């Protein structure tokens, strides 16, 4: 069963430089505005009981989409159908008045969420208990710390039990303990077959809580699919953008090989071809790099190969060389020598990576040749583990 069905839903704003332009337009029947495209037409089908994540940069149209779904903004085009009672948390504590007590604010906030006064009375003890405010509930809200404020606000909005809940950036509030509680409440929502749509900058939450996700960029749908894939793609994109800054370029292009000692080939073994034409590996796959070098008239012991694994945001994950490991290149034919660097199993977590290859002398100070960024590849992992690499570990009973 479909809980939310949106067809060609979009939002454009008209932006007028001066209020006068609105009148000019009205009188002269000629446009005097610039159209701002907040959200390009988008189709959504969200199943009942599904958890749906929305990710993207600031200003990507996430909040616009959620406001459209919540019905607080009318769409410019398209239709929207929502089955069942919906509720939206677009901002925590909007409508709270600082002069009134927490209890008083609960009354109005519940009423604005559509609860009758008897329903509100029934739920008030739960709300107070969940917010952990205790006696402070009778004090004016202006005396609350910001943590108390958001705890109360969160408790109110989640105390109602809608069929469709739309949440904008509201989950990461309060201290660690309260965050756990609120996360549990969201999980319970999911388990009770309620539909949850939410956007967050906490990508881990999106990956954990949602089955499906979309990635918006500049008001345009960039990716849609299962949340792990969408989140990983988005993370790659963010990192790629960060490393595109010129100061991250550590190897200057002038360093061209001019001698007869040079890198002939740096290549990866294995991997599946992904859509972008770069090989895809899974966490735990065998992974090997093959390097071939011309060493010319140099003795074999004087040529060493260094390899560095780099994530696409410029982070060096691991770098090692035949010099460090005291290993020699093996002859292939004539002056061509080679070596394989094997990682089995591959311990890298999801991300886009590349290699940096260096051809060094025995001292490690002279560089014969180098490849700044080569052999780009992608790694994906399915589990909910987070981080850069999978570390060897075990869980043990406490003695």
């Amino acid at each position, binding site marked *: 069963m479909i809980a939310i069905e949106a067809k060609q839903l979009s939002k454009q704003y008209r932006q007028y430089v001066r*209020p006068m332009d609105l009148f000019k337009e009205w009188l002269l029947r000629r446009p005097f505005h610039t159209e701002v495209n907040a959200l390009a037409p988008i189709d959504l089908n969200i199943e009942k009981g599904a958890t749906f994540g929305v990710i993207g940069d600031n200003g990507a149209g996430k909040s616009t989409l959620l406001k459209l779904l919540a019905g607080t903004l009318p769409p410019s085009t398209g239709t929207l159908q929502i089955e069942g009672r919906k509720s939206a948390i677009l901002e925590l504590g909007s409508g709270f008045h600082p*002069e009134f007590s927490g209890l008083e604010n609960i*009354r109005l906030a519940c009423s604005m969420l559509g609860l009758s006064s008897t329903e509100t009375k029934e739920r008030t003890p739960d709300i107070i208990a969940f917010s952990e405010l205790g006696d402070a509930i009778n004090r004016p809200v202006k005396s609350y710390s910001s943590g108390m404020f958001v705890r109360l606000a969160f408790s109110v909005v989640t105390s109602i039990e809608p069929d469709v809940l739309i949440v904008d950036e509201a989950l990461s509030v309060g201290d660690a303990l309260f965050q756990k509680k609120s996360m549990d409440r969201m999980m319970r929502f999911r388990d009770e077959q309620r539909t949850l749509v939410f956007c967050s900058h906490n990508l881990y939450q999106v990956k954990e809580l949602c089955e499906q996700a979309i990635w918006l960029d500049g008001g345009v749908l960039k990716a849609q699919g299962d949340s792990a894939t969408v989140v990983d793609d988005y993370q790659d994109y963010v990192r790629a953008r960060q490393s595109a800054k010129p100061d991250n370029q550590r190897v200057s292009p002038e360093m061209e090989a001019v001698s007869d000692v040079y890198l002939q080939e740096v290549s990866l073994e294995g991997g599946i071809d992904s859509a972008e034409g770069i090989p895809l590996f899974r966490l735990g796959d065998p992974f090997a790099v093959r390097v071939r070098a011309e060493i010319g008239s140099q003795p074999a012991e004087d040529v060493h190969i260094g390899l560095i694994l780099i994530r696409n945001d410029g982070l060096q994950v691991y770098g090692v060389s035949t010099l460090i490991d005291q290993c020699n290149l093996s002859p292939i034919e004539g002056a061509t020598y080679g070596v394989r660097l094997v990682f089995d199993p591959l311990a890298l977590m999801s991300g886009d990576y590349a290699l940096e290859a260096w051809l060094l002398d025995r001292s490690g100070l002279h560089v014969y040749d180098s490849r700044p960024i080569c052999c780009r590849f992608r790694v994906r992992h399915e589990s909910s583990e987070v981080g850069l690499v999978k570390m060897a570990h075990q869980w043990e009973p406490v003695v």
Partner: protein
Amino acid sequence: MFKLYLDLYRHRQSLFLMVRRDTLLRIKGTLLGPLWLLAQPLFLLLVYSFVFSGILKISFRPDGGSGDFALYLFAALVPFSALQDGLQRASSSLLENRDLLLKTQMPAMVFPAVASLGTLVQEVIGLSILILTAWFMGYAPARTLLLLPLIVGLRLLLTFALAPMVAVLSVFIKDVGQLLPMLMTALFFTTPIIYPMEMIPADYRFIIESNPITWLVQAYRSVILENEWPVDDLLVLGLACLILLAMTGAIFMRLQHRAKDFL
């Protein structure tokens, strides 16, 4: 358009709580508390009595004493300032409640409605003081007072028929907020509030008589002080309110969503 007003009915509980909150907010934290709601109109009545009856010695009716002037003035001033106050508050209602408007599912109509309804508290207190004072001065409460709730209702309806229009227009045109006090002053002087109808030269009388606020304040005076049944006035006024309500509804419905892009 009916949906617009129906939505309002569906949110009546929030509406009531918001009116209550607005009223409480005025007196919250003050030393006198609810006494302020009483003190303000009482003070106004005393000042007017002193100035007009004590110093200027104007009388409202040829046969009345000068003491009556303050009563006649007050009977018109109470509803007029309620109307004025309501529209003034409505003009900033959408701007002030921007957060609620954009981030909760409250319909936009709620905010001017709260501004209109909020004036009822002040008016009821002002009228109670007026009726008691009049009684004290020899105007025993007449049976025509039974009509007063209806008249107050019409006054409220008139405020509410104008408030949403003022509210939504102020979003598009900030100048409305500046213009409104001037318009209200003009309205104040084209309504027989501080002068009796009889003082108007016959040539200008049609201006005053075509003003719906004139019918309204005359109705207040009729039932409180003159023991008359202003049925014709009320019928015309009711009709005017309905037309205004339809006009405002149409305008508000067309503009309320676009107003959100401007907030």
